[in-house]
């Protein structure tokens, strides 16, 4: 039944044992423990036993007024039969208030998408390990792995009162995903081994996903922020059309099939100022732009994202209640104000102009943030991420412009030497204020995917003597007058290029320090501070030598592998040509020659058909190869750098003292913002 649940629990127990072992984490934790800023991972409890559910219900005064006027049905009729009953961290909250946040523009839709994250069929709990029911009340995977069943909540309604049924899933599959004008290429999430799957209605509240080959991975895909399992808010905004379900009753009118043909649909689109019906549809199904779109999240947009303020209001049909039957969410409104640059955003957060802000907050400003806690009326929480590398140096294995450089980039001992030459404690102190965990890029020790003892330190300690010895050994023993090693082809100085982008971490500056460490073992590295767009374009064109980024998402290797292995051509710093080869089934790109690389790709491809236990073991194997080969040199990880510095207004309640920071936790969605409230 819930194989993931039991398995995860077992692994969690095992992982907890491993985590309890002394190691490099100890000193970091003592500094952090002293600071008092790291809380305990805590989260909501979902009451699944109907016998314990409340029988009377409450609603916000605003909605009660509308019911009074007859504009809204009473709360009992708005809530589903299969309730989602949440026991929040502190307890019962109060209605009212506006949650103020900062956002950076129309491109920052993730800011709102994540708050709506409960519109996914399945969520994860606060540890990030256990899947929990959200839109769906239950699920199972058949023994043969070919049929995945989702059980929907009876009586669950869209924000305009229409019911959510299996028809919405079938509608998405047949009329949106199946329409080549909207979705030109099928997604791997629905096509194991290239064979397309189907969505089939069993009854009004039961949906089957059917595949021709065993696809055990699908169960995990449904729980993560994937194309299929991500939910309507994120997967159908910004011209995307995934998410497994869609509001059929609303969107039908924009499709030619139901609007009376392509001409009619196009005419309707042009009348509104759009080029064609597809462009019109993309606008209409985007919850950040279209206030009329029915949604399933706790709030809905009233002033769209492309304004100086993005305003959301309570969804009167939200399907969750607290243990006393009060319909969630507690906040009436969410208001995001535009900040043209990040310094302003951070300064406003420090000034207390936001009620809860973790997004875009810069770890480097922590001392200033702490200083102003009293004045700003907030408390700081540091949440540690689950990913192993905030800065990972990916060596392009398919680099071809300079054969000499390519020779070294593809030499494992070269990479290992460079890894040993990095003084990670220095980086940790300087850029992460000492709160990160130095070591290899492996996922956090608490996750089932952690490869095992010793793999945090392998090739990832500070050992310049061994580094020098390795470099001498592989043939780079000739040095020039300044002590830099020489190329073997023309006797000139060996120079590497590190491409670094100034994004949410100061990677160019971090790379300067890394270059300084490499200088000490005789390797010259030129840091190219590149503009973001340019950097991505160059990597896609296979022009970069070393690219530094983080490896967020790889903590669940199968859901978001691109920063660990080169399988997705959109971002494959480790080998763009290999990713093309893998993704196209061999028709494009270049096939890797390195047997280890081939092995990794093979293992990855086969994992989709493996059951959970086997799959995790495969993941361990993949990580072991990755770390042993050091294709990507990790530096430090599991830090609060990305969305981990949380400023919480002192007026708020039901705030977990520590959040889960990971791709699939959908920070801050995983902390269930619908349960947060103002204490007075």
């Amino acid at each position, binding site marked *: 039944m819930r194989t993931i649940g039991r398995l995860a629990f077992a692994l969690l127990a095992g992982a907890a044992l491993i985590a309890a072992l002394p190691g490099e984490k100890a000193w970091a934790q003592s*500094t*952090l423990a*002293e*600071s*008092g800023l790291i809380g305990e991972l805590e989260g909501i409890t979902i009451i699944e036993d109907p016998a314990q559910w409340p029988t009377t219900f409450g609603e916000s005064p605003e909605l009660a007024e509308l019911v009074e006027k007859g504009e809204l049905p009473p709360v009992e009729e708005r809530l589903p039969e299969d309730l989602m009953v949440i026991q929040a961290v502190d307890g019962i909250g109060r209605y009212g208030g506006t949650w103020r946040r900062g956002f950076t523009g129309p491109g920052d839709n993730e800011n709102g998408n994540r708050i709506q994250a409960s519109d996914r069929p399945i969520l994860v709990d606060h540890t990030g390990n256990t899947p929990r029911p959200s839109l769906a009340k239950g699920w199972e995977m058949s023994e043969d792995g070919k049929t995945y069943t989702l059980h929907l909540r009876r009586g669950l309604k869209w924000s305009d009162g229409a019911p959510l049924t299996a028809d919405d899933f079938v509608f998405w599959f047949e009329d949106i995903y199946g329409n080549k004008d909207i979705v030109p290429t099928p997604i791997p999430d629905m096509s194991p081994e290239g064979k397309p799957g189907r969505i089939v209605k069993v009854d009004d509240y039961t949906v089957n996903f059917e595949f021709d080959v065993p696809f055990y991975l699908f169960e995990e895909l449904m729980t993560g922020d994937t194309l299929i399992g991500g939910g309507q808010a994120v997967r159908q905004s910004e011209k995307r059309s995934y998410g497994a379900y869609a509001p059929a009753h609303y969107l039908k009118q924009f499709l030619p099939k139901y609007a009376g043909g392509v001409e009619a649909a196009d005419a309707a689109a042009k009348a509104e100022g759009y080029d064609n019906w597809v462009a019109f549809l993309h606008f209409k199904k985007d919850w950040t732009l279209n206030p009329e779109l029915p949604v399933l999240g706790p709030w809905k947009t009233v002033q769209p994202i492309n304004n100086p303020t993005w305003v959301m209001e309570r969804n009167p049909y939200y399907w969750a209640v607290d243990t006393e039957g009060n319909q969630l969410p507690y906040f009436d409104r969410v208001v995001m104000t535009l900040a043209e640059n990040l*310094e302003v955003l*951070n*300064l406003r957060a*420090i000034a207390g102009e936001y009620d809860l802000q973790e997004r875009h907050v*810069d770890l*480097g*400003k*922590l*001392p*200033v943030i*702490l*200083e102003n806690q009293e004045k700003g009326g907030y408390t700081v929480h540091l949440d540690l991420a689950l990913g192993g590398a905030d800065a990972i140096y990916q060596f392009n294995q398919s680099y071809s412009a300079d054969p000499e450089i390519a020779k070294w980039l593809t030499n494992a001992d070269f990479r290992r030497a460079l890894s040993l030459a990095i003084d990670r*404690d*220095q*980086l*940790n*102190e*300087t*850029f992460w*204020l*000492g709160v990160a965990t130095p070591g290899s890029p492996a996922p956090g020790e608490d996750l089932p995917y952690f490869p095992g003892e010793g793999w945090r330190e392998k090739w990832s300690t500070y050992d310049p003597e061994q580094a020098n010895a390795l470099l001498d050994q592989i043939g780079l023993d000739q040095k020039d007058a300044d002590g830099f090693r020489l190329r073997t082809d023309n006797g000139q100085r060996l120079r590497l*290029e590190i491409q670094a982008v*100034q994004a949410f971490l100061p990677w*160019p*500056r971090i790379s*300067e*320090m890394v*270059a*300084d460490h490499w*200088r000490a073992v005789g390797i010259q590295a*030129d*840091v*190219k*501070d590149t*503009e973001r767009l*340019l950097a991505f374009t*160059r990597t896609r064109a296979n*022009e970069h030598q070393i690219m530094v980024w983080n490896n967020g998402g790889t903590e669940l290797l199968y859901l978001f592998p691109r920063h660990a292995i080169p399988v997705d051509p959109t971002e494959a710093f480790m080998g763009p040509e290999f990713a093309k080869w893998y993704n196209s089934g061999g028709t494009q790109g270049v096939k890797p020659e390195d047997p280890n690389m081939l092995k990794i790709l093979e293992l990855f491809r086969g994992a989709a058909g493996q059951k959970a236990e086997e799959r995790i073991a495969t993941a361990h194997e993949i990580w072991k190869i990755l770390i042993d080969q050091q294709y990507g040199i990790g530096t430090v990880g599991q830090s609060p750098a990305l969305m981990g510095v949380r400023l919480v207004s002192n007026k708020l309640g039901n705030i977990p003292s520590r959040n889960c920071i990971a791709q699939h936790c959908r920070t801050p969605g995983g902390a269930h913002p619908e349960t947060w409230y103002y204490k007075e």
Partner: protein
Amino acid sequence: MSTVLDAAPAPVTTVAEEKVAVATQLQLTWWRFRKHKVAVASGVIVAFFYLVALLADFLATIGPHATDAARSYIPPQEIHWFDEDGSFRPHVFALKGKRDPRTFRLVYAPDPEDKRYLVLFGQGYAYEFLGLFPTSRHLVGLDRGNPEEALFLLGTDQLGRDFWSRLVLATRTSLVIGLAGVALSLFLGVLLGGISGLYGGWIDTVIQRLIEILRSIPTIPLWMGLAAALPASWSVLQIYLAITVIISLIGWTELARVVRGRFLSLREEDFVTAAELAGASRMRIIFRHMVPSFLSHIIAAVSLALPAMIISETTLSFLGLGLRPPAISWGVLLQDAQNIQALGIAPWLLLAAVPVIVVILAFNFLGDGLRDAADPYG
């Protein structure tokens, strides 16, 4: 200053006045310039800065790329000038740092056991003096040990790099980089503006339209595009130089329009007509006769152009489009200081603005003085 209403010159001329009568334009200019005290002082300051640029490595104490987390965000160090016994022996104490777990700030305390005396011509990192010969002598060093261990005259930045050394080296880059651009702008501006104003007619029209087009091209997209289009294998400095030259090819328009305006007015002056009638060539008229009459405006424009180059370098670096690390310039250093943690934790990093301000002021006063001195009507 004599005016027309002054009494007629005395019948007996003094030696000084005779000198004035036969002095060249240049000598006259110099004598007048000397009277303007502030301008002279500014000239000295500018010369001083260029000297610093020349001797940059000698004046620095620690290698500008040497990082160390244990030295991050050290405030400017206190130098004790006198020993306990009262003798003049400047010394510093080595610092020990620790991160306060409550505030997450790094707190440094001097180690009273570890006293280092400052010496002149001490040992430091290796470099090539004026590019001529290798040495490791610097102006200031410590009596024992490497300056890296204890000497931080202006504190350090986030990576633990010595701020004083970086500031001195930044001076060199920033002062030199604008020269090529300004020279080019100047030449093109005067030439094309002059031709445009003097000849008028269709030449004027074509040049004016060209100026319009060039001026309408917004600099920022141009920079972004060029920065992206130039080969990635060039060093940061080379790319910046190339872009500066290209920008000057557009920047001459400012000067050209002013020059043209003046030319249009001056064209009708008697002395120009006289020169034409005397058979002087156009080129000669422009450069020998017309230009000197508004030389003062050109000087004023140039003396503003170089600091404008410096300001544009700092601005573009702020936007991430100009010089970038690991190059060191004032703009790069200011970019380090352009954030809240610098303002709140390490305000000494803002000192990078001081040489910028001083140099720009100095150039402006110098330009003022030169303009006054070169003014033929004075």
